[in-house]
């Protein structure tokens, strides 16, 4: 091989170009699930129970409406709020990484959610059976956004103030939206709750675009 003496700089450039061709990094596909619910309902606990990193926080500037999403009148004032979002992740394999974003669930953050839910597969709405009101805004939002979701009732110390049927009735949600009981501190319980969300997400995605691969039977009760 010819070796043409060259300056260090030129050598470095050639080497860099070589590296770049060989190792342009491929990144995992990020799959995003939103963990929503009222204050103190166990969102961060849920993320932390399953995440391979301890939950991190990012602060984002978001436009928020100062009125409830039920009443977005033409005069509704918008303001900018800094929102702290907790998140964690689970590496599925080298090509797939699951991200969980815990987000404040108050209705005035509805505008933030628009940015947050873009590209999300689904959401877990966490409910406290003593304070069901706190999750109405989340449920309402995801229903309107046509985002697949499930309601997870966090069984604080194994105790539910109402049984699941009563809770479903109180929330007045559609029959086909799963309402499940889970423990935010338990990894397997959180995993199972996420699987319910993912099955809803799969159902939703199949309606748009049928399964292409030979991925096994899917029993999703499609119409």
């Amino acid at each position: 091989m010819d070796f043409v003496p060259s300056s260090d700089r030129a050598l470095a450039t050639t080497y860099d170009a070589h590296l770049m061709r060989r190792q342009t990094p491929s990144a995992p596909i990020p799959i995003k699930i939103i963990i929503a619910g009222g204050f103190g309902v166990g969102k961060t606990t849920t993320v932390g129970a399953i995440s391979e990193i301890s939950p991190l926080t990012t602060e984002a500037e978001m436009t928020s409406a100062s009125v409830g999403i039920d009443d977005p009148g033409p005069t509704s004032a918008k303001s900018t709020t800094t929102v702290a979002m907790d998140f964690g992740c689970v590496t599925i394999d080298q090509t797939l990484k699951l991200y969980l974003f815990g987000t404040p669930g108050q209705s005035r953050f509805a505008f933030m959610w628009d940015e947050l839910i873009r590209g999300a597969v689904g959401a877990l709405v966490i409910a406290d059976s003593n304070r069901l009101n706190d999750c109405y805004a989340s449920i309402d939002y995801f229903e309107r956004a046509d985002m697949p979701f499930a309601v997870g009732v966090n069984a604080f110390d194994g105790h539910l103030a109402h049984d699941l049927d009563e809770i479903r009735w109180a929330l007045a949600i559609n029959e086909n939206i799963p309402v499940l009981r889970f423990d935010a501190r338990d990894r397997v319980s959180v995993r199972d709750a996420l699987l319910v969300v993912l099955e809803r997400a799969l159902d939703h995605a199949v309606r748009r675009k049928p399964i292409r691969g030979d991925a096994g039977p899917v029993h999703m009760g499609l119409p």
Partner: protein
Amino acid sequence: MEPRGVPPYLSDPAATRPSPNCPDRPADPAATLALRPFVITAGRVIGDDTRMGFETQVSALPGARPARLTPEANAIIAICQRPISVAEVSARLRLHFGVTKILIGDLHSAGHIIIHAVDDESPDPDTILRVIHGLRAIF
């Protein structure tokens, strides 16, 4: 996607900011980075840059050894040696998310960072199935 204008201190090595007050690594990056969002972005605010979501993966181009950059830009390149989400860059460097997006956008325009945009907005059934199977298998 139209690249944004490249700030001079990123595009031209000769135009690097003077270093005495601006060492490559601040003594306490967290403290330094958290306090100066508007200085860091030269007063710019987020435009309609929708390429980057919280989970969007970014990575430094291998072999890209930029000339001296701002401490924030250096910190981003250092942390992006493997693919990492924009949210994680923001959290680990204690930079505001919006600021992080602007800085990454600049580094992208200057050819130092790859933004791994995902084409399809909503994941397809096959991908979701892989996540389901993967989660079942992991725990």
